[in-house]
């Protein structure tokens, strides 16, 4: 009856993804049936409530994948089996999975919303080119899982690290150009640092390819009324988090340039 209220659920499983990233699994009917790319507001009682992508959906369970950064994400990272969290959502529009040749560019916890997308796409697409970027080998998450999923289809994965400890040395975006020159795509999906996504978007524009990018902004209400997540005339929580090319063009004065902090003040990227 009242849906925008935390549903308390217990952490059922904690999966160590890397030394700084963990996935939490819990029971939640509604989020277990979300669209890929949708997110939830996760209440960590006594600490904070933060937006988290839905990274796992199976049966009546959902999961999130968190990197410990500040107070809230660290509290979430430190949760154990049996800890109580509050979930509301799923919120936002999510990715629009298409049938065809797709490229997916992800980095860091930006991979979280891409995982459910990947699973759907493998059942739909003829081919997936997946580019996964990161700073260093240790920080990588999901790589084995991605390989396993992709193994079912005619697909390819390219890994890049800034320090060269794994895959190609460099930025994820460095790895894209040669592929784009070689192959024609029907869609590019991306999630990761905004500057990376901006680069992906610019390259896609050059090659005249459509993009779906999942953005992040400070979120409070999660339902499109407080305005804290605004970018241009859009609210990331409601009109996003996934922006397609035409929307990205509309917000070009902000996308990759600045975001707003909790007070609404502009913060340059």
């Amino acid at each position, binding site marked *: *009856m*009242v*849906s*925008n*209220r*935390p549903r*308390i659920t217990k952490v059922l499983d904690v999966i160590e993804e890397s030394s700084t990233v963990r996935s939490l699994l819990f029971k939640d009917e509604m989020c277990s049936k979300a669209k890929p790319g949708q997110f939830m*507001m996760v*209440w960590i*009682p*006594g*600490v*904070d*409530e*933060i937006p988290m992508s839905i990274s796992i959906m199976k049966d009546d369970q959902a999961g999130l994948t968190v990197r410990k950064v500040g107070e809230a994400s660290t509290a979430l990272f430190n949760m154990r089996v049996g800890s*109580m969290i*509050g979930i509301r959502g799923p919120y936002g529009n999510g990715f629009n999975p298409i049938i065809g040749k797709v490229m997916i560019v992800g980095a860091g916890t930006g991979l979280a919303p891409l995982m459910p997308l990947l699973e759907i796409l493998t059942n739909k697409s003829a081919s997936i080119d997946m580019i996964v970027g990161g700073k260093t080998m240790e920080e990588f998450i999901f790589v084995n899982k991605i390989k396993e999923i992709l193994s079912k289809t005619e697909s390819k994965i390219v890994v890049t690290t800034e320090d060269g400890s794994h895959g190609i040395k460099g930025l994820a975006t460095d790895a894209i150009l040669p592929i784009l020159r070689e192959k024609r795509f029907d869609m590019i999906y991306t999630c990761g640092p905004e500057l990376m996504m901006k680069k992906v978007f610019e390259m896609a524009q050059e090659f005249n390819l459509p993009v779906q990018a999942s953005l992040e902004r400070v*979120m*409070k*209400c*999660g*339902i*499109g*009324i*407080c*305005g*804290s997540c*605004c970018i*241009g*005339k859009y*609210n990331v929580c409601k009109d996003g988090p996934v922006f397609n090319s035409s929307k990205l063009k509309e917000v070009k004065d902000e996308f990759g340039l600045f975001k*707003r*902090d*909790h*007070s*609404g*003040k*502009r913060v340059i990227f």
Partner: protein
Amino acid sequence: MQEPDLSVEIAGFKMKNPLMLASGILGTSIASLKKVFEAGAGAVITKSIGYKARVGYDNPTLVEVHGGYLNAIGLSNPGVKEFYDELSNSKIGDLPLVVSLFGAKPSEFKEMVSILDELNIKAYELNLSCPHVKGFGIEVGQDPKAIREIVKSTKEETKKPLFVKLSPNVSDIVKIAKVAENSGADALTIMNTIRAMSIDIETFRPILANKIGGLSGPAIKPIAVRCVYEVSRSVRIPIIGCGGITSWQDAIEFFLAGARAVQIGTAIAYEGLGVFGKIKKGIRDYLIMKEKESVRDIVGLSHGF
């Protein structure tokens, strides 16, 4: 039958229709406010701006309850100077823009108005009624002396109309309303949210980080209608009704109670921005059905009974 006239005028500020976006909803940027205007609002109000930046409260800042929402955003805002940079007359254009201001003392209001006044702002709304931020809202809004000083000194600083937004969290809103009127308010916005709380029974905890927040939405509508009715019978300045308006029927109820215009906030959570268009059409059809020429013709009609 002739097309009814939806326009209203409040202390010289002319609006094409009587629907305003309530403060604190989508009011962070001019781009958002423009979108709301394009969706059909007759005027839009920014979120409340203070002298200094405030990050506001930690999340959770919002939680749904039966018939409404609790919020304790905590007056987060970038501060008047940063906000000034956000605005510019070329950006504002002819957007019917009202800026909402909060503050702890008269000098803060004065200072803010002196910074903003050159901008193409149509009016100010003084938020003397935020129910959950210590020292700013309700403490001010319950204190006749503070209201008098703030309204008087702000008035000295600007020629633009001043709306004063009142709190229902008082023993006698009529008394407070008269103080605001006598101090120079050009209109009264009635009302802000009501202090309320929600506790999660699984964790035993208040859900909002600030514990107490403000209740908005349909749940408070009959209280707001009562406040508008009582106040509008006791003051001469126009009333802007606010609280739980979700349908055109709700808006009409406020006009009949004595409001000359109405603000819409929480309804957007239920209905999206389409709510402005729907309410506007409903008011128009109602006026035709009741053979009234304009919104003005139904303001305060319930007072006759």
